[in-house]
Each structure stands twice: as structure tokens, then as C-alpha cells.
């Protein structure tokens, strides 16, 4: 499944991997948190921590966070860190919205204001070109 290297291809690829990075991050952290809440304190021995990995929600969370790591690495193979870091901060917004619409949590006016500011920041950075340096080079 080759992806073209022209500007539109780069933008399409960047948007796709940005969305994948955000979704796997939010879903992975949510699954991990749900699993750890169900388990309670597993203790700090290596056996207890390894045992916690076999809980279905924890296993799903870890699997999603592995996918997050891989998509984040792929994104950084062509996009700037100063681009990837702010645009993937949309995960904060998605976490708030999923709390509101999936769990029915209350979001105060102050928190809605925070959501608005983060969205504006992500939009502003999203308007910049994803890459300002050539991939395959190291800074001198």
C-alpha cells in the first residue's frame, strides 16, 4: 500500500497517522485505567504486575498503547516534533468529550473554555507545514 510522496499525499498521510495516534492514545489510556480500577492495587512485586497484564482491559490497553507507539514513531519519521506534539494534544479534548458523551460526566464552563483553547491551539499548529526539515538527515 504505497503512499505518494507529493504534498497532498504527505498531508493525507499526516492527517491519517495523527488521527490514529490520538485515537490509540485515548483508547489505550482509557482501557488501562478501567482495567487498573477493576484490579485495584496489584502490589508491586514483578509477579503481581505481570499478572495484571492478563486482565482483559489491561491487555487491551497495553496492546493499544503499543499501536500508539508505532504510529507515533511512523509520524515522526516525516513530521516535525514541534508539529506532532501540539496536534496530538487533541487527545486531551477527546478524553474530555468521551467523559461527557460516553460516561455522562459533567464538564464545567471552565473546562469547556480549556477544550476551546486546546482546539484553537491544535487548529493553529495544524495550519503549518508538517515538515520543515528533510527526513533521513540529522541536524548539524
Amino acid at each position, binding site marked *: 500500500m504505497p503512499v505518494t510522496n507529493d504534498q497532498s499525499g504527505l498531508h493525507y498521510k499526516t492527517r491519517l497517522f495523527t488521527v490514529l495516534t490520538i485515537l490509540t492514545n485515548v483508547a489505550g489510556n482509557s482501557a488501562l485505567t478501567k482495567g487498573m480500577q477493576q484490579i485495584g492495587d496489584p502490589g508491586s512485586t514483578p509477579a503481581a504486575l505481570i499478572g495484571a497484564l492478563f486482565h482483559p482491559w489491561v491487555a487491551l490497553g497495553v496492546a493499544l498503547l503499543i499501536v500508539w507507539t508505532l504510529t507515533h514513531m511512523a509520524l515522526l519519521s516525516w513530521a516535525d516534533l514541534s508539529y506532532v506534539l501540539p496536534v496530538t*494534544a487533541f487527545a486531551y479534548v477527546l478524553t474530555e468529550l468521551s467523559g461527557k458523551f460516553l460516561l455522562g460526566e459533567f464538564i464545567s464552563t471552565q473546562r469547556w473554555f*480549556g477544550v476551546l483553547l486546546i482546539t484553537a491551539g491544535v487548529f493553529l499548529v495544524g495550519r503549518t507545514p508538517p515538515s520543515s*526539515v528533510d527526513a533521513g538527515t540529522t541536524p548539524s
Partner: protein
Amino acid sequence: MKWILVFTVICATTVGDVCRSLGMRQHGEMHEFSPGAIGQAFAAVARNWLVIVSTCAMAVSFFSFMKLVAIAPMSFAVPMSAATFVPETLLARFLLKEKVDWRRWMGVGLILVGVYFISQ
């Protein structure tokens, strides 16, 4: 203790992200996304010392953050961990030589203030 953990999270995340960016830039842009190509690419980067350092730093960051949220409220831990945006953007500008224009700085500023508000 909590400030030691905040410092550890910020340093480890910054080292992790900067090393990951450097390592992946050395590897070059990924073009092929078939399962075989993805496997080959990650087998190659798994031998890159910058990516190895990055993965270790991210593990330190993850466990330090888990410990931080166990002893401090999320309203403290989340904005403190978001402070990594500042050193990472500075390093992206001066170490990675990225072009960080006013929109990126302004975006980082808006996000930091936004994270502060949603954590209250």
C-alpha cells in the same frame, strides 16, 4: 517526592520524544505500510540506539506518571506533565533545527493554558 516525580516525568518525556524524533529522522520517511514493510521498518529502528534510549525514557516517564497520579491529584499531575511542551519545543527549534514559527509557539501557549483549565 511529588516534585521529584514531576521533574522525572518532564525530563524522561523530553528525552524520549527528542530521541524518538532524531532516531526516526535518521531512519527516513516511511512510505510503505504493508505488514511486511512495517515489520522491516520497525526491525531496523529497533537497532537504532536513539530509539532504544527513547523507549527506555518513555517507560521511565510512564511509570513515574503512574506513581505521580497515585500520590497527587490529576488536577496537579496533568498540567505539570504538559509542561514538557516547553522544553520539547525549545529543543525542536535549537537541537532538531525545526522551523518553529509564531503559529506553533502560539499553539503551544494556547494548549498549555487549555490543559490548565481542563485540569481544574
